């Protein structure tokens, strides 16, 4: 028998730590041979904490939303194999189907293996792919296999991975170390990057899109998949040093990755002369310091060099001049996690999945107003409807679907009428949104689209590195206009002003942060123009999110005069006699909503 507890950051936040301890102590008290181990996130975050029990006859029972009270039942099952034990917590057939029908390549091991135990990974053909490369393939053949697979970068742009690898492989060595004229001290190098033919593999684990956590789940749940992907890339381009740039908000991912690297070194999968060849490679971790723009590859490199993370003009591309001016290949975590599978199963097997121009699978972080929030991996070519209403289980609380936001602050929204759009780089781009890195935020009728646009502009405005005037000041001007509209001071002509500014920012910005910053505004203008008009012309927010546009009134027929609201209102805006209908004085009302929360009779109307 074996127990595993899902302990990604999400599981821990849902209380998996306590469950784990209770199970461990319980098993010890029973005195049975049943190790309790940690696994990463299986993706069904809405069911967390999740406990799997693998019985002697190979049968697995999955218990979900496990509370401390449920632990006794699970222990009883462990002790007696009695099926009725803890049955109330057993996963429902529908939820199980949601997990099992996904096609998992990048997440193949997440939630199944113990990320802190390399043997688990090796047992599932781990490190077989890099061994195959080193022993039986030339670097060119590896790149050719990647070309066959059609894998596109999962960091957002979908750029063909093989192409970048090939460019880095063929890049001329850069003979001179960086000559930074105004900073004398930065010419002091530690020497390692002076080697003439030095090349770097960099893994982008900055995952800045607020509302996405695919990369965190991979690192926390299956770090070796990413490490092996980096090894294969290193072999292909001829690099001996890798760096993983992880965002600072992911402390658990950093701890797991450190352990994984240590174990890989001990087992001889990282270090010198791997598999008896002259191929050597090792990886180190660099923790980010909190800047969204550092996800952009040239900014990431600047940050690695200890500078402010500001993008620079391309070309030269990192494949030509990257970290310390040396050829560097940057890929996303999910991109790397796909690579070992491709090498083991062949590029053609990967290319057989998906659509004409988007191959393989894509991981999405389903969040927002969705019933089954979590991670899903689906083949390209499924529709948004498949994801939202299939695995996603539809909208929370039975509300109506309004839109999904794809690609975070660089992306756009796809409205309900386009819900049958297929997941494919080209098809999504045609809607004005992008595939992005995999954030899929679901919105229902209670989400105000103008407020969403304001939210994203607020984000990009804060995260602009400040290099380009259009991005730095233009986004601020757009934000001011949107704040005005949400605040009830929208003016005629604002929509035109926003569209005009959007075009200018797109053209006048150096990096994709600025170039794509207007997308959330442009797509909401395209699909939800009526909401802008409601805000500006009629001073109404139909989703009831923009507080300054709301009016709170008491419905006299429903009010019983219980005075609860009077006591709830901190601003003395409500008056009336006991047992008689009350009144809200509009001048004093701050629209805080305290009265609505207090009223037991649904007597307060918000319009």
């Amino acid at each position, binding site marked *: 028998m074996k127990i595993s507890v899902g302990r990604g950051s*999400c599981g821990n*936040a849902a209380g998996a730590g306590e469950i784990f301890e209770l199970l461990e102590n319980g098993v010890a008290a029973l005195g049975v041979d049943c190790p309790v181990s940690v696994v990463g996130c299986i993706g069904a975050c809405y069911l967390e904490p999740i406990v799997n029990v693998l019985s002697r006859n190979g049968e697995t029972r999955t218990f979900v939303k496990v509370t401390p009270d449920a632990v006794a039942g699970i222990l009883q099952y462990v002790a007696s194999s009695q099926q009725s034990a803890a049955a109330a917590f057993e996963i429902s057939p529908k939820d199980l189907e949601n997990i099992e029908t996904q096609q998992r390549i990048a997440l193949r091991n997440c939630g199944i293996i113990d990320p802190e135990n390399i043997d688990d990974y090796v047992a599932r053909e781990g490190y077989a792919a890099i061994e195959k490369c080193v022993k039986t393939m030339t670097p060119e053949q590896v790149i050719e296999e990647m070309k066959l697979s059609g894998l596109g970068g999962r960091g957002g742009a979908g750029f063909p991975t093989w192409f970048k690898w090939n460019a880095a492989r063929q890049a001329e060595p850069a003979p001179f170390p960086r000559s930074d004229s105004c900073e004398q*001290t930065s010419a002091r190098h530690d020497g390692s990057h002076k080697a003439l033919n030095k090349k770097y593999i960099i893994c982008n684990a900055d995952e800045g899109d607020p509302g996405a956590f695919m990369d965190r789940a991979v690192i926390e749940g299956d770090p070796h998949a990413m490490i092996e992907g980096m090894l294969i890339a290193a072999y292909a381009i001829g690099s001996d040093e890798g760096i993983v740039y992880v965002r600072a908000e992911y402390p658990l991912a950093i701890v797991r990755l450190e352990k994984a690297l240590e174990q890989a070194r001990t087992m001889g999968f990282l270090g010198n002369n791997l598999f008896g060849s002259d191929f050597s490679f090792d990886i180190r971790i660099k923790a980010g310091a909190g800047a969204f723009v550092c996800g952009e590859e040239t900014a990431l490199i600047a940050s690695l060099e*200890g500078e*402010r993370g500001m993008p620079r003009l391309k070309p030269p591309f990192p494949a030509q001049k990257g970290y310390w001016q040396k050829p560097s290949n940057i890929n996303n975590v999910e991109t790397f996690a796909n690579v070992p599978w491709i090498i083991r199963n062949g590029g053609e097997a990967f290319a057989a999945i998906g659509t004409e121009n988007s191959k393989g699978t894509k991981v999405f972080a389903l*969040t927002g107003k969705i019933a089954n929030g979590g991670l899903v991996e689906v083949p390209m070519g499924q529709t948004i409807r498949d994801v939202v209403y299939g695995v996603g289980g539809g909208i929370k609380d039975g509300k109506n679907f309004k839109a999904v936001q794809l690609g975070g602050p660089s992306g756009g929204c796809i409205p309900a009428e386009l819900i049958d759009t297929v997941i494919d780089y080209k098809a999504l781009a045609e809607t004005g949104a992008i595939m992005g890195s995999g954030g899929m935020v679901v919105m229902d009728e209670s989400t105000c689209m103008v407020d969403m646009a304001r939210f994203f502009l607020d984000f990009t405005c804060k995260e602009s590195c400040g290099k380009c005037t259009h991005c730095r000041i233009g986004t601020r001007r757009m934000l001011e206009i949107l704040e005005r509209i949400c605040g009830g001071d929208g003016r005629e002509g604002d929509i035109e002003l926003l569209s005009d500014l959007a075009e200018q920012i797109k053209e006048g910005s150096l990096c994709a942060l600025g170039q794509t910053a207007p997308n959330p505004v442009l797509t909401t203008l395209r699909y939800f123009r009526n909401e802008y008009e409601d805000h500006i012309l009629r001073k109404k927010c139909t989703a009831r999110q923009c507080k300054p546009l709301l009016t709170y009134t008491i419905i006299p027929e429903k009010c019983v005069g219980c005075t609860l609201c009077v006591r709830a209102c901190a601003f003395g805006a409500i008056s009336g006699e006991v047992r008689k209908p009350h009144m809200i004085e509009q001048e004093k009302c701050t629209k805080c909503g305290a009265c609505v929360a207090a009223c037991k009779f649904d007597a307060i109307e918000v319009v």
Partner: protein
Amino acid sequence: MSCDCGNNLKISDSDIDVSLLEPTLVKYADVSGSLITILQKAQDLYGYLPADLLMYISRRIGVKPAKVMGVVSFYTQFRTKPAGKNLILLCQGTACHVNGSADIEDAIRECLKIEEGEISDDGLFTYNNVACLGCCSLAPAMMIGDKTYGNLTKKSTVEVLESIAKEES
């Protein structure tokens, strides 16, 4: 041109024991590109980055004060003011925004009587807004120390804060 203003400054704040940072400086002072790593270690040690300490780092690793300050001000992780004993990172990412993180911020502000970045009267708390903790499926979420709290409501937020305050007293 190089500027030497950093050389004339001495550590005046006697509260700062710079020797704590010595091992880090010895390890990284000559490794180029380590400024961010040094600052991260310093912040771990001292809780924040006082101006005097930045001057000291600048002098020790031979990077101009303006550049050190430039890096510190660029990254949101770095703080130049002290924080309360428990740093609350309140997520304002997309998923949390859609699920009502603004209300959670109100609850924190009302409960602790502080604005973002300030220290509560008892010195126990500071809160900062951050963009995404990677627990979006449990939105709205916040992180205190290395513990993450999900599916927050105004009520549960206040309960978390109160239980921490109680433990501390």
